[in-house]
């Protein structure tokens, strides 16, 4: 297992390198001059040139890329934001807690809704409950996120006054954004749980468990769910990985100081080091979550465990 994890971590290097290169290229060919953008509408050109030189934009592409990679490898330095003049790593770390909390809460919400709904739907396939819960879950996905967020704010902050409309400094603040994301992703988990459970409850070992005289609830929760877990872990992992990259729309709506908003702002400003660092961070999270998912597989399924070497 250790060896496996080590191998996987090693594999991170080419992926991350690929990511940085693509992002670098992307940013390079994307029109828009960071210096000009930074200075705004009413600043003369000489100043722009001066700034370009100051941040090293006048160097050739490969030189820029090379020094970027070199700095990371040799000094662990991801560069300094053009805009805030602070180290990129600090900026990202400053946003990370909010993103992590929001992602965690959102995943909890969607699992909390999705898994039970999926299980009940599967065990009562084609019943009214099944239909209602699927419809409910679908409505969640169907609503554009920002619209749903605004509507939630209208209801819970403005009219009921129960929850704050924006900000991120306590438990109360997480509820609405987590709900916004959670409800729109719950459907995926519901659907996955349902189909995975349907697959599993047709298996002989489920019948075997029943044949032992086991209670239905235990048959479902112990035997079936344990085996249905893999696809559920997969979607939850994917979701979590994606959310760690920040949920831009939700973050903007609820003024959550998360990574997603930072990224969008940085992209808009062509804050190259920030974008680079950010994407690298996102890719890293993504890969790590994937790895975690694969490790979780091993816990969920002994067959997979024995494959990891």
């Amino acid at each position, binding site marked *: 297992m250790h060896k496996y994890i080590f191998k996987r971590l090693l594999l991170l290097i080419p992926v991350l390198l690929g990511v940085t290169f693509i992002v670098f290229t992307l940013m390079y060919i*994307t029109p828009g001059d960071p210096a000009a953008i930074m200075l705004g509408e009413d600043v003369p050109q000489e100043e722009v040139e001066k700034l370009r030189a100051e941040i090293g934009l006048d160097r050739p592409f490969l030189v820029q890329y090379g020094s970027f990679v070199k700095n990371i490898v040799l000094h662990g330095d991801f560069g300094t934001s053009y805009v805030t003049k602070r180290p990129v790593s600090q900026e990202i770390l*400053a*946003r990370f807690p909010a993103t992590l909390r929001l992602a965690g809460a959102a995943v909890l919400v969607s699992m909390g809704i999705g898994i039970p709904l999926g299980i009940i739907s599967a065990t009562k396939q084609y019943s009214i409950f099944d239909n209602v819960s699927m419809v409910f879950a679908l409505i969640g996905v169907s609503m554009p996120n920002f619209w749903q967020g605004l509507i939630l704010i209208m209801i819970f902050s403005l009219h009921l006054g129960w929850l*704050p409309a924006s900000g991120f*400094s306590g438990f109360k603040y997480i509820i609405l954004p987590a709900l916004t994301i959670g409800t729109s992703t719950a459907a995926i988990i519901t659907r996955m749980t349902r189909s995975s459970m349907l697959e599993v409850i047709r298996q002989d070992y489920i019948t075997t468990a029943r044949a032992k005289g086991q209670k239905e609830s235990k048959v479902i929760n112990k035997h079936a769910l344990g085996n249905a877990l893999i696809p559920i872990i997969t979607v939850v992992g994917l979701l979590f990985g994606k959310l760690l990259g920040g949920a831009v729309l939700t973050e903007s709506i609820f003024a959550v100081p998360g990574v997603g*908003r930072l990224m969008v702002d940085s992209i808009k400003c062509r804050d190259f080091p920030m974008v680079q660092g950010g994407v690298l961070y996102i890719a890293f999270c993504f890969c790590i979550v994937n790895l975690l998912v694969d490790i979780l597989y091993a816990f969920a399924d002994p067959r997979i465990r024995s494959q990891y070497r």
Partner: protein
Amino acid sequence: GGSKSAAKEGEEKNTLIVGLAAEPKGIDPHPVNDVPSGNALVQIYETLITQDVDMNIQPLLAETWKQIDDLTWEFKLKKGVKFHNGEELKASDVKFSFQRACESARIGHIVGMIDADNIEIIDDYTVRIPTKEPFSALLPSLCHTGGMILSEKAVNEAGEAYGEKPVGTGPFKFVEWKRGDSLIFERFDDYHGEKAKIKKLVMRVIPERTNRVIELETGGIDVCYDIGANDITRLEENEDIEVYRKISFSTGYLGMNCLDDKFKDARVRQAVNYALDVDAMVNSVLKGVGTVAKGPLTPNVPGANLELKPYGHDIEKAKQLLKEAGFENGLKTELWTNENKDRINMAEIIQAQLKEVGIDVEVKILEWGAMLEGLNNKEHEMLILGWNNSTGDPDIGLYAPFHSSKHGKGGNRVCYTNKRVDELLDLGRKTFDTEKRNEIYYEVQEIIYNEAAWGLLYNKEVVLGAKKNLKGLKVWPNNKHRFDFVYFGE
């Protein structure tokens, strides 16, 4: 955060929570030039002199000042001014600050005229600031955030990390910046002037307009920046809330690339001006928040030519002019705007209105960076932009947008060229006599107006919302408001 705490009863209201529309880029005055940063900076730092809400120059760190010659100004500093780190303000700090400012690209256009290396320290409290050329707009420039005075010692001690530990002379000390969320300030008890009435100032960043207003209404914040036009009426009806409005220094314009064949002819540009129903536009998009622009300068700028009148909506005349210019069959053009909602709305209306005189406009929404690049390459035909006169001086308001040396990247986005205007603008910089100077700028504005260098759209308003029990709030036209004299009343 602590949003609700402001609204809680019984508790002594010592904390002011302000909702900003965007996050400051930094709180070191030199590497930044954006309004949100300015919002925060004015709490911490101070300039030698300052403009009051009516744009009159007032002493601040300098008690008196005088012009020695065309190139030099002398300032006498107030004594006993303490920085937040306990140091006293000295002339050396002033010199240091301007030297540092001039090295920064971001504010170079504001303080660039200053010959920083030759600043002369007469004594601890007297400093002479020379300019490279005669520069009549120096005083307003010194009021800009770029002219803020830093503590030399603090900057040197902090080194790279100065951006995290700003030290100024302002009424509030910086405490903490929760990135993406809020900035927290605390009253500076050794302030040289009247101490701030509130103990703590929190500036929260709430980018979504609707949400910011909801926070104001529900008590999450006490002051709300940049209130949307369609929220004003409701807020004005709200008994707990006071809406403050003031015309700002920024002018929205419909630019026409004068190098483009279609817009070379002033008659076409005039026709466009006639074709626009700016009144309707301002009513519809800005919901009456803001006024129809009458000239290139906002009326509150000293030196604005108030005799100019809006072109007015005259379709016949527009068609006539087009015909004269050889476009009786109309023309096709492209209108660029960035993803700013108000501008997109404007663009849509402009599109509809110009259609009536036979100008077929394709609206293109460009991502800001990409748009800038296109503008810099002068690939545009029509564009919607605003010009923010950052110091409220006619020079800043007119030189860059209309001087032919500033084509394209320099600020003259419409590539307007007029020898007379060039001459006058150069002259204006060297003219220190207010009367004469004003006359020069009057003429410039008239020419620009007549030649319809811009399609004049609107002058924006600064709109602040605040709790009614918040007293003493003053509103600056540049949207950089100080909160030290604010307090909670009944």
